[in-house]
């Protein structure tokens, strides 16, 4: 994927970046899947006085996790992320519970509650995250092979580091295509608002993502 981010106006920072990500799912057995992913942030400097104030540093994420299916609707997962960045490498552990349901209308609705802990040279950071997502097929009542889809995800995060708490809001839109084998490719636009309010830091990401499995 590619991304973009923004900064500018009084007290607000708007950063822009590109991003690419590649995600793989390996079926270990009927209940367990090994998830792995790679994400690269690509600095795209669109800074100007009107809106954008800069971009981000290049960074790569490697993710690996294991998912256990509890039922056709519920799953749990746990794993780790390693981030290689000019600003310093970080490690993160996460665990999550998720629920996905095809509604009787046209939407597929997904809930995800994730807890994670980030390790670096500084004090560890804890985050609690809730994400609500909806996927809408371009036609019909569910996304079928050979069909495009649109998804909207909104996520609320609360970060705890030492004595400080910082909220963050993320809104992601995806325009994707489901291939015959069940693989998905998508364009995405992601807005991340850290510490919403007068002094927020806003990151705008534009990118490409691909999800494949075997």
């Amino acid at each position, binding site marked *: 994927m590619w991304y973009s981010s923004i900064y500018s106006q009084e007290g607000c920072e708007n950063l822009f970046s590109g991003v690419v990500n590649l995600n793989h799912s390996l079926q270990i057995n009927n209940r367990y899947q090994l998830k792995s992913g790679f994400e690269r942030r690509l600095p795209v400097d669109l800074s100007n006085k009107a809106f954008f104030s800069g971009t981000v540093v290049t960074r790569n994420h490697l993710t690996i996790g294991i998912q256990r299916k509890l039922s056709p609707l519920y799953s749990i997962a746990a794993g780790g992320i390693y981030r290689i960045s000019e600003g310093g490498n970080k490690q993160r552990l996460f665990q999550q519970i998720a629920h996905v349901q095809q509604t009787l209308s046209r939407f597929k609705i997904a809930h995800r509650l994730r807890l994670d802990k980030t390790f670096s040279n500084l004090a560890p950071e804890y985050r609690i995250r809730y994400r609500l997502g909806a*996927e809408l097929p371009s*036609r019909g009542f569910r996304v079928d092979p050979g069909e495009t889809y649109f998804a909207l995800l909104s996520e609320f995060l609360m970060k705890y580091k030492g004595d400080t708490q910082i909220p963050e809001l993320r809104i992601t839109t995806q325009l994707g295509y489901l291939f015959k084998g069940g693989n998905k490719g998508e364009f995405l636009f992601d807005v991340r608002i850290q510490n919403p309010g007068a002094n927020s830091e806003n990151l705008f990401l534009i990118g490409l993502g691909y999800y494949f499995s075997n």
Partner: protein
Amino acid sequence: MLRVVIIFQILFFSGFVSAQENIEVEYPFSHKRVPDSAKLIVCELFPGEKVKWIIEHNNRGDYLEAKLKVNKTRISIKFNRKGVFEDIEVEVSLSEIEEMVSNKIKSKLANDFDRFKIKRIQYNCSGEQSEVLKFYKTGKAGLDSISKHFEIVVYGIEDKKIKSYEYIFSLNGNFLERLVNAEGNTDNLLF
């Protein structure tokens, strides 16, 4: 950048196709393009009700389907593309089925799965159009000319595999057929 594009091209056109799955594609269809014969049947059975028309594409072919909700009950009437009646399906709950039959169905499912959950039951009625419609309206018809069965969507765990299935049972609760419903990739929503 070119490398990225090439890698994505390779990935986009690679696929892992699984067999024997029940894949249905449905998409909306304008009522203006629906044959009059199909509209007439729906209007006769459900006058004044709001109808949503769709095309259903599955392994057996393309069908035209009228979907409506009457008194909170979901009903769908299937036609071929020329508007010839195929069948009518009415959603029912397990408690509405005769106890002996529902026990037989549950017994079969309990036998097939370690654990299961019934997600949807449809009462399906097909055969000669006039007799089916008469049966639907009056509850009486020539029994030789119509075929009735239950279509049931079940989530089940079998040999530690959790999947969604479509079962077909006769009205007596005898097992007729089972299909595996295709699973969707939800990683974009969860990871």
